[in-house]
């Protein structure tokens, strides 16, 4: 049941971010706890393996690119294909797939938090007087070990140029597929329920052992 609770929390976060541009969905990878070998106390022979129930091994972020949709805003950028935008935050360089950018008072390309977006050479990107940027001016980076940090940011190690290309006037859709997420939510609820049933059944068995064994016929 505890594992399904974690999975449900991941699903809830995915659903909440179903409209967040450039969001990447988390999936739970489950496995069973290590099994134990039971031996018969009476005869000493082995009975067999018994599992200890499932555990969430890790949450895996699905980095598959989602389809861009047109917004018509000149400073909305999407990456078609693999790669990340880089922004210089107070905590260092962070990577993002959300290209909802704007123009700073000094004419540079900034993200929603006002942090500068970086070009391929690591320098800031200047917005032209007509309020547009050239696709090629904005850096696309391949990032190793991309890990989510919140605020659409990923940490990781940049390893040169990403394969994707920049498209202006569009945003990448959220990677949380509503249908898949809803199905996962239902499946998880039912698995949680069956976990509860197992606890009840074991409780019944123990109850019988404690209350009925040894009592003389009714």
């Amino acid at each position, binding site marked *: *049941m*505890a*594992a*399904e*609770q*974690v999975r*449900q*929390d*991941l*699903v*809830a*976060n995915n*659903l*909440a*971010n*179903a*409209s*967040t*541009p450039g*969001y990447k969905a*988390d999936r*739970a990878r489950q*496995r069973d*706890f290590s099994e134990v070998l039971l031996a018969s106390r009476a005869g000493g022979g082995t009975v067999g393996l018994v599992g200890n129930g499932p*555990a*969430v*091994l*890790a*949450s895996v972020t699905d980095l598959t690119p989602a389809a861009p949709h047109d917004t018509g*805003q*000149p*400073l909305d950028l999407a990456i078609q294909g693999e790669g990340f935008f880089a922004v210089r935050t107070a905590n260092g360089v962070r990577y993002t797939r*959300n290209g*909802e950018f*704007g*123009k*700073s*008072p000094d*004419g540079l390309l900034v993200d*929603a938090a*006002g942090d500068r977006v970086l070009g391929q050479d690591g320098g800031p990107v200047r917005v032209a007087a007509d*309020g547009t940027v050239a696709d090629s001016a904005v850096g696309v980076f391949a990032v190793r070990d991309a*890990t*989510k*940090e*919140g*605020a*659409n940011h990923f940490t990781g190690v940049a390893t040169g140029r990403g394969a994707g290309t920049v498209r202006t006037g569009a945003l990448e859709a959220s990677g949380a597929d*509503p249908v898949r*997420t*809803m199905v996962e*939510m*239902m499946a*998880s*609820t039912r698995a*949680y*329920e069956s976990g*509860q049933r197992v*606890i*009840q059944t074991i409780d019944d068995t123990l109850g019988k052992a404690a209350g009925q064994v040894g009592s003389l016929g009714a």
Partner: protein
Amino acid sequence: MSQGLSAAASGMAAAQTRLDALSNDLVNANTTGYRPERVAFHDLLYGRATSGAAAPVSVGAGVGVTHLGRAVGSGPTQQTGRALDVAIPGDGFLRVQRADGKVALTRDGSLDVDTAGRLVTTSGAILDPPVRLPRGTTADQVTIGSDGTVRAAGRVAGRLQLFAVTSPGSLQPIGGGDYVATTASGAARQLASARFDTGALEGSGVDMAQTMVDMTLAQRGYEMASRAVRAEDELMQIANQVKR
């Protein structure tokens, strides 16, 4: 309390904010010079779940909302044939002195003459720098040239000036189609040359069809987040039934 419950609730709140912004856009679908609101979503911090996990698993706390300001780009130009209507091609603004003393920028070029003979906008704000017409001038004697020169009965009475900011999307709307400059937008500066489309007004920047589609999406987003709340509730209910 499970983190998923608050994450799902944040999804509902975010969809609600987006719906509010879209409703405001929709009611302003005919407002001169209106620019649609931009609402940005971002995921929140990731925490560590330890119970039920073989190793700590990072679980997100939901979604947050930021107001990005207004969309940029002009709405469609509509011909009105009225001599005192001006539309502004490009990113310029008229500067006005409002009744509450604030100096604001506006793209609403539907001008009028007040009782003191000054040019005012529909909200009653006086143009800054002011354009004063000679005493006794009526509105039908006024013409405005494409360079902004205002003539009253053939004589030059003043000139409309245009102002611009570096980042027009970050201007702060204060109602009545007026905006004030912020640190994010940069200070307003006067443009050397001004050009106007006279006898025309800038329509609203709201695309009705797109706004309706976005509204449907926001509504569905709200619905899905509410289902996630229900699912989390169901889990707690099931957990409660362990002890009968």
